[in-house]
């Protein structure tokens, strides 16, 4: 099953707008997507649930692991990777 590891560089980490953008991106794909906070070693949660993503407590500089299974899994991971590498559309 396809998995990628990413570093969140946004100053706010995965909260508020970055968290909303992350969930919005994940929810656009039909596959199951989970995300895990590697830095704090927490269990994986549903990447399409904003409350679940907020409970991960991902601060700036933290590493996350994103896993996708099912239809368009590769495309979903690509979209999430682009979002985070582009710092959620902020410069």
């Amino acid at each position: 099953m396809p998995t990628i590891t990413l570093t969140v560089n946004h100053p706010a980490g995965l909260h508020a707008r970055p968290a909303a953008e992350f969930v919005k991106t994940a929810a656009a794909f039909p596959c199951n997507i989970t995300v895990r906070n590697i830095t704090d070693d927490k269990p994986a949660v549903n990447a399409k649930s904003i409350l679940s993503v907020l409970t991960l407590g991902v601060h700036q500089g933290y590493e996350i692991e994103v896993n996708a299974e099912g239809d368009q899994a590769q495309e979903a991971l690509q979209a999430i990777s682009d979002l985070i590498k582009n710092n959620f559309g902020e410069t």
Partner: protein
Amino acid sequence: MLAELLEPDAILLHYPAQDAEDVVRQLSQKLFAKGYVHESFADAALHREAELPTGLVLDGKVNAAIPHTDVDHVIRPAVALATLSKPVIFRHMIDPTEEVPVQIVFLLALDQPKSQVAMLQEVASILQDAVIIERMMEADSVSDIIALLQR
């Protein structure tokens, strides 16, 4: 952290809010009166809510909103809370075109971006607990609310 930051004088229970703006202004005023935030906080929180809404759909009977704003408007960190006697409309955090009828509001006044993440984490975990939310909605006293959050 939440139980410590929750200001007892900024808890409104079964508040009959006119609309979302009314709740945010009432709670902001309580925090302003206690010296936690600048007077600009209410306008700033409403402005942010219009641009980046914070309505959240919960699994239980009621939905929540977690308005907050830039750290510049905050003097000392605090959290204000309202349970509402009838729902008011907030916009959905993920899809701002969607209306969310909200009956529980956590207004977060935090002075560091990093503490915002930690607080959102704690508030989100409470919001996922349908039993606690139901008990908070039923609570008739500030001490009941604080006891529920001191888990």
